[in-house]
């Protein structure tokens, strides 16, 4: 039986727990209680007239109620559409209209037609409704998910049950989550992959702790998880904090890592954006193995390093059920036995055709290669290739990575204003800016690069942040915005730091 159908087929074995650790409150339930409560919610949804295929919206921070609604939707074959309040500034009523929702539950203190307070979900009495026997076919779609692209309005797609199943099965094969494990989730449950760990707990018999972004640091050490699901931005900030703490207190990296993450970590998970190799090394050296992977919303997990097969610098081997095809331009294409989707639900004209190709193939737009042992290496975005006037194609990410290895450089974007020479726009790590150190980093990088890849000068930018629009919500530099904002400095020959 597929993983998703095991979730909906009946109550889990007792003995494993769902904990919700928010600031000011920590609660815990046996998963059998969670199952029972989700049944009440499912009955309530049926009473509201929700039927198979209808969409349930959830606009709320992580909570027990979030989990209950999602499980309830699975149990009546409704579709969960999760919205992160931090990313959607539309009202619940607007989301209902925009995405054709049967009902939306929110913690945003809004009342409107088909918009309901999520808090009421927990207090529902037992329902008399008889829940249907449910089977999810691989091509059916339990979730509407949204891409958090670096520009433009969010695109959405309906994710197939088959893709969820194959990803969960492959993850279980690699990491063998089970009794004794507690997976810590603080990223929004509006991201489908964060909900995987609840499904995994129900099926494979382990604990799961749901927290919030704000409470993550305060609750990690008390929750004492064995696995933390994070993103590179989280680990980079946390790594810098651990190093500062070690320097301040004289404790070893391993000791401060335990102070922050607790003493039971088995491994740390990262993905969704490129990770800084130095950060990955820091955590591994501190006794917290960290495994990078690769995947898009449109492909789900494609490749993943794991304890049995780990090659630093790569994003791991390709998962069973997935095939990576590198096209003539070096772009990674992914074919899935069970594709996530074959088109977007909401997108600009032409975007579906650009991403989803015939035969279940997704053109990722990322450049990469497979080594002789099947490990996938991602080198950057195809859009980030600079073609010089001599025809030489320059992939900028490895150059940017070299510069970012400098402690004075937090981030950078390499551009070419003239098609002849490259210029790096740098987000400084410290203020006042250490121009000597940056000049030295430029010299060092250029010494290791081919002539055409060498960077002529560095232009100092403001620190890239989400707030000033120079980073995406996933902490990726927004290249076009950065290039536009600093164009004058880039082209002015009097400006910049030279090697």
């Amino acid at each position, binding site marked *: 039986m597929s993983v998703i159908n095991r979730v909906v087929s009946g109550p889990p074995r007792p003995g494993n727990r769902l904990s919700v650790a928010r600031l*000011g409150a920590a609660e815990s339930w046996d998963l059998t209680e969670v199952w029972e409560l989700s049944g009440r919610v499912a009955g309530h949804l049926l009473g509201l007239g929700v039927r198979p295929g209808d969409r349930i919206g959830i606009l709320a921070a992580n909570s027990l109620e979030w989990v209950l609604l999602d499980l309830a939707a699975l149990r009546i074959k409704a579709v969960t559409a999760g919205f992160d309040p931090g990313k959607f500034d539309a009202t619940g009523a607007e989301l209902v209209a925009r995405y054709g929702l049967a009902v939306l539950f929110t913690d945003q203190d809004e009342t409107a037609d088909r918009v309901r307070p999520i808090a009421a979900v927990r207090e529902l009495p037992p329902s008399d409704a008889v829940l249907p026997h449910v089977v999810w076919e691989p091509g059916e779609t339990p979730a509407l998910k949204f891409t958090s692209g670096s520009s433009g309005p969010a695109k959405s797609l309906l994710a197939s049950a088959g893709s969820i199943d194959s990803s969960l099965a492959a993850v279980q094969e690699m990491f063998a989550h089970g009794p004794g494990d507690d997976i810590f989730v603080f990223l929004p449950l509006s991201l489908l992959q964060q909900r995987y760990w609840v499904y995994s707990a129900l099926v494979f018999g382990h604990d799961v702790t749901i927290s919030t972004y704000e409470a993550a640091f305060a609750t990690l050490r008390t929750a004492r998880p064995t696995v933390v699901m994070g993103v590179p931005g989280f680990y980079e900030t946390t790594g810098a904090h651990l190093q500062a703490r070690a320097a301040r207190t004289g404790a070893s990296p391993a000791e401060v890592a335990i102070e922050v993450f607790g003493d039971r970590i088995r491994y740390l998970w990262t993905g969704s954006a490129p990770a800084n190799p130095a950060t990955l090394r820091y955590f591994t050296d501190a006794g917290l193995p960290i495994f990078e992977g690769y995947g898009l919303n449109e492909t789900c997990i494609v490749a993943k390093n794991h304890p049995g097969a780990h090659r630093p610098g790569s994003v791991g081997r390709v998962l069973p059920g997935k095939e990576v095809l590198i096209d003539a331009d070096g772009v990674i294409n992914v074919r899935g036995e069970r594709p996530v989707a074959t088109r977007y639900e909401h997108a600009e004209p032409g975007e579906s055709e650009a991403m989803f190709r015939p035969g279940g193939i997704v053109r990722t737009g990322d450049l990469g290669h497979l080594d002789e042992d099947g490990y996938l290496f991602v080198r950057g975005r195809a859009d980030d290739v600079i073609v010089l006037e001599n025809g030489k194609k320059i992939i900028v990410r490895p150059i940017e990575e070299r510069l970012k290895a400098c402690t004075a450089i937090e981030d950078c974007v390499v551009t070419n204003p003239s098609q002849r020479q490259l210029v790096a726009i740098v987000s400084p790590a410290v203020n006042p800016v250490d121009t000597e150190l940056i000049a030295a980093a430029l010299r060092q990088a250029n010494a290791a690069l081919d002539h055409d890849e060498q960077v002529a000068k560095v232009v100092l930018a403001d620190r890239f942040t989400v707030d000033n629009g120079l980073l995406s919500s996933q902490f990726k530099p927004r290249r076009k915005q950065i290039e536009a904002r600093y164009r004058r400095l880039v082209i002015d020959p009097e400006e910049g730091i030279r090697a």
Partner: protein
Amino acid sequence: MPDTIETTARAALAEVLPQSLPPEAIDPDVELDHLGLTSLNKVLFLTSVCDRTQVGLHHFTEHDLAAMRTLGQVVEALSRHAEVR
């Protein structure tokens, strides 16, 4: 100078700011965002200062944290709970 909530908070904040700023030079009324503090670093700062002053972060909700926009507001909020500890 004896450790107070304010001096502890200033020291903890100085550690996470992107610029090198002496703790005593931080303007308590300037918004933390304007000092270059990212949202994750703000969480780290608050967690750290609560640790060092032994004021449990459990006194606050996510909403309370969002409302602490300046160093002065952080010190005031922590002081309220330190007094009743």
